[in-house]
């Protein structure tokens, strides 16, 4: 092999680097049952091994807690400086995510996966930072205690009584490699007492609380089981790849009903555990009704749904007045096999009654769907809400209004009662209750029904001013009144809420219809963007901007009604690069003022929709609608772009056709006379009895001149084609050794008397090339070598495959290239000052053009041993077909 061939190792490293960038990094978790088992220590030991093997690793964040042995292990590991943040006058340090991303090592060490970042960081949680590192293709080593795993947090709380505030979603561990750092509890306690875990002042309280032997045994069992389950899952995944049918034969599909109740959280965790052990997909469903929720409940609901999403559930939200009917409808649509709902609370009779009704209805109508009623575990994290909840201030106004209207009616009745019997006031009250139901909620209407019944009894039914009723007829009347008022009131109220729901649905449908119609009319990108901004502004009462990729950075479209600050633009950019929603109401940079949604097609993100909403919380329905807007807009933007590309293609094809016609005509004009000359000269040459040497010499001159002229015409035409960008290689499978032989044979006359040494690698696979173009490339290089070296100089032609590339080299032992000419070698009409006559100065320019048309590279250099070498590298992305040939 020649010494000046590219170093295969560096080439390989470059290729691997490129591949690694595209792939998601691998996560390795050093899992422990509790603090102090030596996770960080084990992680650092592993890191030391990696760095000895030549791994490119950095410490993103490691906390040694001042333990000496651990500190010692960080020696020799490159460290990325932490970022300093100030929160409430406390100076805190966090991992500098951007610095690690910019450094882009193969492997980063990030301690304590469950850590909560200081407010003002990009993500609220460290596991989200790690996720971003993995997405960037960086492998990560991290540490985690079992109690911080979302689905196990409940169990740990029950076992130890400790509150778990920081949790990591189970989905983070799905693709991770787990390494359990196991330590017998007795040893752990010993280590604790030696002060190896906490500083002495904390050791005492720790031993009494968390580090009790019973706790430790339970935690150890929990982590052992988790790791065992995880290994089981990997085996199953393997089986699944081998045989699709095996792993999914259970056919289970779980669905959990989620509400804004504090109990939903543990219900979601329960379902995830169940789905884990059944290895089946699961859904989390929320049925919204028209009543709307209090802010606190709403935000808890959003949190619950986000929790479910982070645990790997598919989240569905829909509206239905009847909870049971809605749940079963979604369940059937999604082929759910088991429906999981919480057991109704026992301490509240009303809720119990209501929950009981839901259960009965579900049990009656669920058909072939199994029903799991799960005990609602008490969640100590959430403040208990009082059993009987009053509506907030708006409701107080409603009660006041009800009381006011009843008082007015009472006065009217007092006047009327002088002329009528005691029954007329009853009907008037009834009328008032029905009218109130048209405007007020259920509670106030019920209140009005009860209150009016009592007032009627007290003031009007004889004996007046007592609650006593002394005749049967009045008794029955009073009872009937009571029932009719409540039922009527409730009915009217329900009709009204249903009507509201209808109206909401209709508004949504109309809004979408409106949007689609506006989009249909929009023909250009600017029009689509403008319509999108106008519609979002109108429907969401928001300020909106659309951020699109510009020349070299993202820029807000000028039509936006929201002016994005530098900071908001950065948030949008982050979302754009990471293909995720970012900003307010999300987990990515939630401190931002606006919500930034990606406009995403299957292929790429085309831009960001930035919306500044005035809402405190964003209900699921509104968020859904906003996302639908974004999706619709993306589709239309994509369509507009495709149409533009299509038109561009048509133009290119047309220009190519014209240019081909032109070239054909020029070629015809120049070559026809050449053909006549060549043909005539060759006919003359064949006449045996022509008179003498002189004529033969003249004819040979004519032949050589016309051949040269013909080559020049060919070269000029090729250069013109290259310049107009119409050289597109027709790639086909080629036998490289055939290519080389055919080239050399075609140059028979020009290379006469030269020794050409051909070296084609033995194990040369078929290559993806344009045979004709590559033949010309090699021919031009050989001719070039022949032209610039003294007669008799040996020319070498080599070809060999290497990884994903095919290499050619044409080398000679001639005088070599003078260094100052090297940069100009491949220029058009460039000729070396001392070049012998015969070249057109186009050969190498064409070589370069054709090689680049193949996506390849060419370089020229002098060989250390003397002579010039031209090296060509052509990428081979497709593997040659390996199937047995028929």
């Amino acid at each position, binding site marked *: 092999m020649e010494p000046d061939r590219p170093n295969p190792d560096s080439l390989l490293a470059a290729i691997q680097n490129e591949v690694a960038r595209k792939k998601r990094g691998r996560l390795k978790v050093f899992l422990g049952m509790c603090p102090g088992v030596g996770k960080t220590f084990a992680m650092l030991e592993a890191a030391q091994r990696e760095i000895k093997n030549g791994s490119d690793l950095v410490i993103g964040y490691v906390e040694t807690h001042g333990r000496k042995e651990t500190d010692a292990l960080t020696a020799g590991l490159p460290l990325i400086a932490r970022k300093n943040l100030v929160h409430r006058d406390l100076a805190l340090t966090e991992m500098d995510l951007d610095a690690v991303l910019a450094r882009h090592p193969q492997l980063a060490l990030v301690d304590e996966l469950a850590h909560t970042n200081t407010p003002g960081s990009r993500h609220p949680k460290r596991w989200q930072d790690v996720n971003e590192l993995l997405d960037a293709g960086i492998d990560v080593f991290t540490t985690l205690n079992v109690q911080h795993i979302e689905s196990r947090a409940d169990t740990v709380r029950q076992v130890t009584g400790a509150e778990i505030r920081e949790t990591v979603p189970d989905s983070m561990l799905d693709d991770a490699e787990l390494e359990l750092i196991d330590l017998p509890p007795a040893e752990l306690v010993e280590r604790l007492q030696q002060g190896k875990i906490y500083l002495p002042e904390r050791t005492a309280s720790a031993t009494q609380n968390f580090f009790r032997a019973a706790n430790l045994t339970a935690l150890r069992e929990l982590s052992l089981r988790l790791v065992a389950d995880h290994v089981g899952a990997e085996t199953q995944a393997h089986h699944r790849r081998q045989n699709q049918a095996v792993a999914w034969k259970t056919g289970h599909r779980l669905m959990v009903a989620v509400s804004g109740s504090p109990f939903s959280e543990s219900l979601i965790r329960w379902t995830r555990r169940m789905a884990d052990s059944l290895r089946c997909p699961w859904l989390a469903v929320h049925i919204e009704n028209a009543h709307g929720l209090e802010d606190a409940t709403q935000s808890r609901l959003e949190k619950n749904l986000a929790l479910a999403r982070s645990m790997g559930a598919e989240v569905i939200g829909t509206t239905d007045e009847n909870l049971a009917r809605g749940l079963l409808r979604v369940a059937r649509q999604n082929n759910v096999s088991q429906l999981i709902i919480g057991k109704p609370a026992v301490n509240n009779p009303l809720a119990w009654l209501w929950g009981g009704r839901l259960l009965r209805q579900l049990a009656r109508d669920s058909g072939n769907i199994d029903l799991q009623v799960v005990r609602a575990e008490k969640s100590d994290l959430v403040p208990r809400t009082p059993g009987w909840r009053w509506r907030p201030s708006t409701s107080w106004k409603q009660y006041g209004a009800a009381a006011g209207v009843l008082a007015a009616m009472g006065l009217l009745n007092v006047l009327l009662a002088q002329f009528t019997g005691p029954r007329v006031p009853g009907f008037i009250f009834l009328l008032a209750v029905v009218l109130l139901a048209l405007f007020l909620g259920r509670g106030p209407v019920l209140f009005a029904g009860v209150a009016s019944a009592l007032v009627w009894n007290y003031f009007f039914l004889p004996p007046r001013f007592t609650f006593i009723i002394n005749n049967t007829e009045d008794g029955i009347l009073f009872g009937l009144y009571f029932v009719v008022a409540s039922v009527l009131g409730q009915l009217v109220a329900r009709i009204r809420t249903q009507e509201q729901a209808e109206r909401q649905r209709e508004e949504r449908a109309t809004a979408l219809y409106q949007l689609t119609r506006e989009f249909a009319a929009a023909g250009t990108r600017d029009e689509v963007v403008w319509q999108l901004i106008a519609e979002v502004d109108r429907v969401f009462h928001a300020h909106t901007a659309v951020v699109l990729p510009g020349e070299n950075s993202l820029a807000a479209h000028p039509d936006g009604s929201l002016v994005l600050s530098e900071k908001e633009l950065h948030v949008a950019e982050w979302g754009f690069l990471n293909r995720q929603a970012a900003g307010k109401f999300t987990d990515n940079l939630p401190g931002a003022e606006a919500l930034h949604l990606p406009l995403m097609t299957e292929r790429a993100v085309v831009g960001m929709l930035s919306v500044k909403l005035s809402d405190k919380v964003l209900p699921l329905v509104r968020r859904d609608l906003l996302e639908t807007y974004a999706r619709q807009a993306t589709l239309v933007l994509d369509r507009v772009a495709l149409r533009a590309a299509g038109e561009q293609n048509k133009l290119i094809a047309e220009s190519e056709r014209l240019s081909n016609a032109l070239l*054909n005509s020029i*070629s*015809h004009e120049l*070559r*026809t*006379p*050449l*053909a*006549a*000359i*060549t*043909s*005539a000269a*060759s*006919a003359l040459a*064949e*006449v*045996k009895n022509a008179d003498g040497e002189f004529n033969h010499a003249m004819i040979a001159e004519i032949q050589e001149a*016309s051949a040269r002229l*013909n080559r020049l015409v*060919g070269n000029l035409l090729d250069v013109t084609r290259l310049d107009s960008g119409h050289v597109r290689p*027709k790639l*086909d*499978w*080629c*036998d490289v*050794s*055939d290519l080389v*032989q*055919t080239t*050399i*044979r075609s140059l028979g006359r020009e290379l006469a008397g030269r020794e050409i040494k051909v070296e084609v690698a033995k194990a040369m696979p*078929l290559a993806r090339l*344009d*045979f*004709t173009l590559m*033949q010309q490339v090699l021919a031009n290089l050989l001719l070039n070598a022949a032209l610039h070296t003294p007669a008799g100089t040996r020319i070498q032609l080599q070809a060999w495959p290497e990884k994903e590339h095919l290499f050619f080299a044409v080398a000679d032992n001639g005088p070599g290239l003078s260094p100052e000419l090297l940069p100009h070698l491949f220029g058009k009409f460039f000729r070396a000052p001392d070049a012998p006559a015969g070249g057109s100065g186009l050969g190498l320019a064409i070589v370069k053009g054709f090689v680049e048309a193949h996506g390849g590279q060419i370089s020229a250099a002098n060989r250390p041993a003397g002579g010039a070498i031209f090296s060509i590298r052509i990428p081979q992305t497709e593997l*040659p*077909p390996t199937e047995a*040939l*028929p």
Partner: protein
Amino acid sequence: MSSPITEPSQTALVIDDEPQIRRLLRVTLEANGYAVVDATNGKEGIVQAAQCRPDVILLDLGLPDLTGVKVLKRIREWSQVPVVILSVRDREQDKIAALDAGADDYVTKPFASGELLARLRTARRRSQPATIAVFRAADLEIDLSARLVRKHGVEVKLTPTEYALLRQLVVHAGKVITHRQLLTEIWGPGAVEQTHYLRVHIAHLREKLEDSAAPAGLILTEPGVGYRLVGGTD
């Protein structure tokens, strides 16, 4: 012109719009025992082909009225007369289109008259009823009737596919056969994209038949177009 008038008089039809080329061809062909008829455009060419019943046609692709390929297709509707394309176009798409439309050979301008005459002879010979039973080139012998291939008198073992491929080349010896024609003939119309079949099998054939010492050039690669078997002396 070395051995003129040994063959019986034959008619060649030249269809070309360039007077100079027509004149030149007339001189060259007549000197080699052909009677020459010429046509200046496609329509006239088709008429002449029907009227004079030429033994061989030389056809230019860039005609003023019809494209050469169209003229060729019209003629092929009723005649199997050998047609040699003579054109300045050297892109393989043009060659493939003409060969697939039924041309017997393709010569690019500028051409040497000796080469042209040789191509004409090959084309004419092939148009006669196929009597080739044994193909010989140097010390290689291919006996189609006995399905036998011998090199230096020793039998060469070929796989059925290799033999089928070789047979196609021998039957059309001297003529370019396009990739498409070979693939369709041997693997069926569904395989026209599978050029790698050809690459591999041709490489095997060459290995078995040609002497590796020198680029023997028995099976010639026509870049981007197809293959041609040369050197037959039957």
